[in-house]
């Protein structure tokens, strides 16, 4: 299936881009992150992230479907 990934803040910098489309057969955001972390050397651990799919917060074990937009949300620091 096809996923759109958006990157923000430290992940955007470590990935070197803000958005990409990937092909994957991995079922959940947690699995996708594990693979990306290995590939790109992301410093954050998955337990530091929250997940958004299609601009909604979801659990990291939510089953993804083709066309989803997936965002890994680093620890926030607004205010």
């Amino acid at each position, binding site marked *: 299936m096809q996923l759109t990934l958006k990157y923000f803040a430290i992940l955007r910098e470590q990935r070197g881009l803000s958005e990409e489309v990937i092909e994957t057969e991995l079922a959940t955001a947690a699995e996708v992150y594990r693979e990306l972390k290995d590939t790109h050397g992301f410093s954050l651990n998955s337990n530091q992230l929250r997940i958004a799919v299609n601009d909604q917060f979801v659990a990291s074990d939510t089953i993804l479907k083709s066309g989803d937009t997936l965002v890994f949300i680093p620890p926030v620091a*607004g205010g």
Partner: protein
Amino acid sequence: MFCIQPSPIQIEKLRAQCLADRAGAYTSFEGWVRDLNEGQKVNSLEYEAYQVLAEKEGTSILAEARERWDILSAVAEHRVGHLAIGDCAIYVGVSSQHRAAAFEACRYIVDSVKDRVPIWKKEHYTSGSTEWINCHKTIESG
């Protein structure tokens, strides 16, 4: 409405949205960029937001405050982009009939925004280094 935007926050405009004849109390909070964080001299800051979700989550927080406390209006705005020392990064204002509700709701909104809204802060230090706040590497594997 919780708004994320790049221009200086117009405090007077936000405050005016909370005016009401029934209102007896108004509490506001401003987060200012300060020159020192955890012992390091800060030169400037960058705020970045996941705008759609940040505005959605911020708007939910304002709605929660209106549900939980007897308030009349609640407004909030967060700035993004490059900010200098002394700049206002966040403004929250709450009006109510009686002061307890305004104080408590305002505090709740500020705390919740800092906790839940997808906004990130990168500090630029006078030493030349930078850091994404709260994003230190941890030892635990994940």
